[in-house]
């Protein structure tokens, strides 16, 4: 006769392991209909599903603006903070929490204007996170003011006779920053390319900066409509180490340019082309850059006794 413990038959039923796209969606997004942000949201949710990111381990950090409402529409952790300040917050989150998947959602005003100082340094910190710059070249939430990326001469409420300064080129600017490690560009209306770009960015070991040219049909229709309609307006950067599209998807583009993403000088040259065409693809990637989040996490979990010892040894210096 064998005797069994009463809990002999208790088995642990594993918790749900598969996340479907619904697991990442929260309330209905309150962007205007036709806004490019909707497709980006969907594409990010698809990425989360494909990568099976545990929602509780995923954090979306944003600033202020139309784009920055994004975290509210995800069913993950989110941080919808202050104008221009998404980068420092995201850096603080990632510094001692390597277990979290961190995304930064920012807009052209948020990143390139009010938060430009943080943008420069976030690139330099090169923490593993995906940065999505929703660039619609206009201030949407505050109803049509000039953005730092508005094309010269754009008519806005602040510049009714046309904007007077040349726009910042976020790709070119980022490529010029210290410790830059991943720079890509895509457009919200080419889902295959958008998805592939997000996937590539997510796989990058450091900070992946993705500028997404985003439609704002409410305030900037005239700026995007020609590009959306004209198949010649986009040039795809192609390379085996770049953003690789299925042959079928690639065929839909008329202009394809070979570009090795390890070539920084060439990347800067292509970024300059932006005036005549919109190049999309991976401009630059360097997987070897110094990563500040690795520094931040290198001494996690020092036992309390050791910490007390260290404090006491410092205290000895002041002992009398």
């Amino acid at each position, binding site marked *: 006769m064998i005797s069994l413990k009463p809990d002999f038959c208790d088995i642990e039923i594993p918790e749900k392991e598969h996340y479907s796209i619904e697991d990442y969606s929260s309330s209905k997004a309150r962007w205007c209909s036709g806004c490019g942000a909707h497709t980006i949201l969907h594409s990010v949710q698809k990425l989360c599903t494909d990568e099976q990111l545990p929602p509780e381990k995923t954090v979306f950090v944003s600033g202020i603006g139309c784009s920055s409402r994004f975290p509210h529409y995800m069913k993950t*952790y989110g941080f919808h903070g202050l104008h221009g300040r998404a*980068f420092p917050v995201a850096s603080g989150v990632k510094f001692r929490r390597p277990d979290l998947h961190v995304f930064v959602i920012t807009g052209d005003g948020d990143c390139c204007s009010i938060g430009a100082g943080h943008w420069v340094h976030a690139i330099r910190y090169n923490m593993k996170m995906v940065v999505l710059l929703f660039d619609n070249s206009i201030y949407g939430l505050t109803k049509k003011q000039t953005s730092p990326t508005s094309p010269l001469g754009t008519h806005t409420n602040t510049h009714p006779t046309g904007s007077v300064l040349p726009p910042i080129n976020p790709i070119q600017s980022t490529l010029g920053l210290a410790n830059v490690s991943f720079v890509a560009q895509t457009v919200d209306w080419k889902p295959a390319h958008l998805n592939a770009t997000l996937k590539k960015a997510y796989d990058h070991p450091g900070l992946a900066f993705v500028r997404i040219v985003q439609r704002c049909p409410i305030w900037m229709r005239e700026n995007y409509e020609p590009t959306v309609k004209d198949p010649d307006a986009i040039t795809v950067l192609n390379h085996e180490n770049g953003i690789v599209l299925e042959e079928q998807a690639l065929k839909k583009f008329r202009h394809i340019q070979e570009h090795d993403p390890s070539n920084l000088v060439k990347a800067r040259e292509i970024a300059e082309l932006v005036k005549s065409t919109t190049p999309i693809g991976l401009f630059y990637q360097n997987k070897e850059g110094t990563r500040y989040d690795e520094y931040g996490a290198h001494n996690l979990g020092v036992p309390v006794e050791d910490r007390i010892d260290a404090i006491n040894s410092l*205290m000895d210096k002041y002992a009398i």
Partner: protein
Amino acid sequence: MINDKVEIMSNNSETIKSEPVKIERKQIREAVVEIVSDSGEGAQKCGQSLGTISAKMGNGVWTVEIIPAEIRPPARSKAGASGIRVRMGSKKVTNMGDHADMVVALNEQVLYGRIDQNAYKPGTYLLIENKWATDTEETNAAYTESIQKFKALGYIIHEIPMEKECLKHVSDPRKGKNMWVLGLLCNIYDRDLSIAAEQVKAIFSKKSDDIIQSNIDLLHAGYAYANDKLPMHFTIPSKISKEDFVVMNGNEAVSLGVMAAGIEVCSMYPITPATSASHAMAEKMESAGGLIHQAEDEIAAIGFAIGASYAGQTAVTITSGPGIALKTEFIGLAVMAEVPLVIVDVQRGGPSTGLPTKVEQGDLLAVLYGAAGDAPKIVLAPSTIEECFHYIILARKLAESFRTPVFVLTDANLATGVQPFPRPKIKSAWFPDPIDQSKWEEGVKAYDWDPDTGLSKRPIPGQKGGMYTLTGLAHDEESHVAYDPAINQRAAESRSRKLAALHKTLKEPKILGDKSGDLLLVGWGSTRGAIEEAVERACERGAKVSSLHLHFLSPMEPGLKSIFKNFKKVMTVEINYSDTIGNPLITEENRRYAQLAWYLRAQTLTDIDCFSNVYGQPLSPIQILEMLEKKLDLTLTE
């Protein structure tokens, strides 16, 4: 003042062991010594050492740095006084004292600024380097003129060939003159020479044996010189404590407090006089399980700290007034989104960049109210170096329990003042629990405000089921942007209610002196030592004056209104701006009050007067005594 401190004239002359000569020593209760020089000549190292040696001998000590207005003022200039004041006493010393008793000056020009600041009075010993008498024609003229002036002012001058004496031992007297001066002072004040030698070794521990030896030689030489050539010698008896003591300044105490609080992220941007609060921990922070992040600017520094706090590791950011101004928007966010955070404000003179190296308690109202809208937060003010350490530990616990930013207000006086205090025994209970990653209880909302206390539990990224999006916009319990107007009212009440909940746990402040009388002085922060010493001295002379010192400024400590009722008059003593009654334009109606006075008047509906100034100097007991004299119509000072 000097005579007052002399208790006994020693009739039985004591013998210095190392020398056969018998010197008469006066026993005194305390002494205030200043060492002044051009910056870079090591006066501060000399004074810090004298302070440490004295603390080791069981004396009470307080040191204050004397900082020139410019980074590198021209040598031998009146604006160039750089140095240190050391007050040593038989009992605990809590402030910088009134006038100096003994001054060592490496050139005579640096004395003028101190004289203008009323730091010396007739009878003060001035020990002056006399090489300037023969250096050049120009310095000779200036030197001679100064010496005559100082004599006329009633100072007791000793001209000392410091450099010449040092040359007997080292080839470059500029390096090491400060240690010779240390030896000189050790003899004058009967400091233990072996403790002094240990201290010199400790200072130069990273240098070669030769350098250590030559500095010890200089120490001995200075000691011998005073022994042979100087007539004034004093002893300051002490009760050597059995307890372990440490001696450090307020910034160092903050630094150690951060580590002892178990804080793992200190995020800051360099700013005087707060920066050195990160220097002290820099060496050991990593082995103590934490890191310092030097952000790209003040705004990023607090944003980074808030990010870390949001992710479960309550962080600290350390700054000064101009930094607080930049951080204000993020402070409002932390209040709104209920993110625990510790913010240390080492206050300096303001507004704007103001007086970077000088003391002021000018940020109280800015910290209490300087955010968009209603942003209630906890504000603490340590009053001693020891409290600088312990309040950081308290601040982290409060921040987490009340889910809110907690300010710790220190100032330039606490930051650079050095004082011995019992060595804290670091406790594991001071450290935070590991980040909670257990499953979030189903049905509990991200802001599940308790209706009475406003308190709620906080989900931390990694907790299943707790997902929420923090936002600086008005939000409901689930952190959804509030479109229902009633929710804003409820949320604001909840954030405010937390202060009331904390208030319920606080004790009434202690009163120093009688519980009723003619006048009650109320202070906060670094002025405590000077206020209490002035009150004790006034009481000894029959004044009916008491004091109380506030440590919690938000929420305010309880019972104040009824305490105030027992005094004919209540006034605050602070280092910030207030209009002075007496100016033809200033009336009861338009007078702008000092910050605590302003705040207490509003809180207690009591007619509260104030004494304050913005000379950028710590308050001395004598200043407060003189003020009391006028207010109470008494003669208190001699």
